């Protein structure tokens, strides 16, 4: 964490504060995930939509009692998303492929390079070496930039609280289970073995193995292996992914790489602008003192200045 210490040092230096920010571009290397990161392989062909994972999550994370009980299938009428009361939800899709009904569990995918983490200006998110993306509610200001940034629309916000609203999302049961090497509650309870918990690198092999063994059963793609830089949760499906609510247009670059172009300009502006504009000032007020000053012929950078000649 030397880099962070260095940054903090910079930021402490009063006047140098704004300059310190330029180093932020360093925060965006190409990172392929921790070697010991855990993950979950989700096999959509096995899911029957029993919602027991939702119930287990609710209990494990001490979330409020739901309005509709977990054995009620009527929730499938609409497409739900995770929110402050449910860190995971299962949706049902009637697909175009031979009328197959597919169920899909949604929760945080625990990205290798999480967009929520890189967009957070107080560093409230942490990617642990076990692969979980966890959140510190003590320092969250509530800007909700993470919700804007998350390509999977996962984080929810407890809008109902006036005093202490915070982001609510799946944390991979980090505090209670994954930290101790145990699988998260949803994985443990699943009766159909839809979910497999293990090292991410092993799960990737396992996923490809299944596709190779029964190529008729699966679409030849392991969703999450490469998407937005790779995610901890990986998906196998029997129908094209876009038919079951997956965004297949995200690309393989982590979200932060879109932002790098801007971050790259920051040091340039900080370094060049002061010299450039004080230079203009000297040129345009040359031989005039400060009082006179009509007309200047400095080649100005910003075009509106040119126009005013």
């Amino acid at each position, binding site marked *: 964490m030397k880099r962070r210490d260095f940054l903090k040092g910079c*930021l402490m230096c009063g006047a140098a504060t704004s300059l310190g920010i330029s180093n932020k571009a360093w925060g965006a290397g190409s990172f392929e995930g921790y070697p010991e990161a855990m993950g979950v392989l989700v096999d959509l062909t096995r899911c029957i939509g029993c919602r027991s994972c939702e119930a287990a999550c609710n209990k494990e994370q001490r979330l409020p009692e739901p309005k509709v009980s977990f054995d009620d299938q009527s929730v499938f009428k609409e497409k739900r998303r995770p929110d402050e009361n449910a860190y995971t939800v299962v949706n049902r899709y009637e697909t175009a492929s031979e009328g197959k009904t597919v169920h899909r569990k949604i929760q945080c995918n625990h990205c290798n390079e999480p967009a929520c983490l890189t967009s957070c*200006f107080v560093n409230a998110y942490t990617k642990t070496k076990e692969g979980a993306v966890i959140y510190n509610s003590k320092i969250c200001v509530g800007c909700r930039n993470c919700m804007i940034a998350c390509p999977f629309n996962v984080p929810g916000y407890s809008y109902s609280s006036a005093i202490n609203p915070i982001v609510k999302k799946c944390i991979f049961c980090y505090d209670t289970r994954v930290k101790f090497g145990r699988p998260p509650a949803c994985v443990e309870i699943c009766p159909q073995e839809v979910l497999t918990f293990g090292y991410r690198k092993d799960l990737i092999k396992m996923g490809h193995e299944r596709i190779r063994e029964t190529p008729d059963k699966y679409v030849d793609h392991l969703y999450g292996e490469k998407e937005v830089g790779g995610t901890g949760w990986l998906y196998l499906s029997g129908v094209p992914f876009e038919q079951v609510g997956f965004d297949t247009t995200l690309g393989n670059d982590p979200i932060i790489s879109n932002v790098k172009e*801007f971050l790259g300009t920051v040091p340039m502006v900080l370094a060049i602008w002061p010299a450039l504009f004080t230079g203009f000032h000297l040129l345009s007020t040359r031989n005039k003192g400060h009082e006179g000053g009509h007309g200047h012929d400095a080649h100005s950078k910003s075009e509106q200045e040119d126009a005013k000649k």
Partner: protein
Amino acid sequence: MKTYRENGVGIVDSLYKDTNKTKWSLKEKLLLGLTPQQYIGQALRNPFNWLLAAIFAVGIPIILGRFIFGLGWVTHSSNDYPWGMFLGFGLFAMVPLSSSGFQLGTTCEVFGRHDFEPIERLGLLNGLLGYLFAVIYLMVDLGQPWRLPYPMVVSFGPAAVLFLVAWHVATYLSVQVAEVSVAFFEWIGFPMGKRGVRKITLGLTVAGIILSTLHQGALGALFTYAPGKVHPLWYSASFQWLHFFVSSLPGGLCMVIAVSTIARKTMTWRLDKNFNDNLDKLTIALAKGASMGLATYLTIKLIGIAHDNKWEYLATGWGQWFMFEIFFGVILPLGLFAYAIRNEKVGLVRFAAFMTVFGVVLNRVNTAMITFNWKLAEREIPHWREVLISITIFAIYITVYRFILYRLPILFQWKTADEPVEELATAKAGASYSVADGSATLGTYRSKVESPLSPNSYTTMNDGE
């Protein structure tokens, strides 16, 4: 106000009210030189004040309610649309309209174009207030606004664009307070402070350019975190920050034109001759700048589309909406500016400036709200309380803006000399001017006319009644 002026009530535009060098008291300055009865009387006569009062009566309780019952009470608590009107309009639209501060600062202080000075302070004030109220909108929107200083002191997320925005807006706000404080020091009668700030003006201005370039762009870069959510026509990984930065240039200049137009219409008594005489000329000069900015913006907007080959989207419904924005917000005002500048039609310039402001606001609202999540079926329509709060904060903005314009030397020049060294040198010039004009105003020399001269203007005016 006009009525009182006609009845010979003096305008507070210097430290002293008459030849005996009695100073205006702070209370008199605050009441614009009127008695409390007169002040309340004129305030009650103005129908616009009644409108403001009505908005406050409804809106302020709702703002308080937001802090008692939480964001869920005033917004639709949407997880898919985490940013609503407070940020979509309040932050993203107010900030580009406030770029006038650094632009006019640059023109006058860096490029030495002192002919822009009559409008420089309006530009600076417009910048300061725009930023201040953008932050106020932000405070209403943040889940825990009392933690706003956290990115400065508690925990740092230096890889985040918002981190840069937070630091830069905070720093720039202080820079702008310092720049505008010159007017405040004149008004309050604290020449030491004024001299102190004048010494560091160049530094402040250059700091302003850097901070503005970066955070105007950074607001655009915030959306590069959501490449799949912002509609491709409003999104460009490479150009997003340039689009936001470049469109903020005409946005800020046109906002100054718009505000000066309103000020000229509604507070005629407050403008001095210097401002009035120069305004038309300066409006055209600002419009020239704005049209250069607009032309650049249009070009890079088109390059942005060509760069990612997004032409096909133009044929969709979103594309029509995009073309509407570009036509009425950019191309049409550009054409009007070209015609009006050539033919020196100031009225048309002003109209086009209002259109540009509209175009910039529409662009920000489109990016942040209307076309955001274009892939989702449901569109977010703001809650009525959210709309009301936004309107209320804007009304507070107008009230504060007007309060300051009425009092501080922004639209007029403070007539009290505060630099004794230059006093003698300019006294003659001032005298000759007053003789030449013989009327209310005292020449175009910046705040250096000796004090005993200024009361003449009042007596002239009073005699005239």
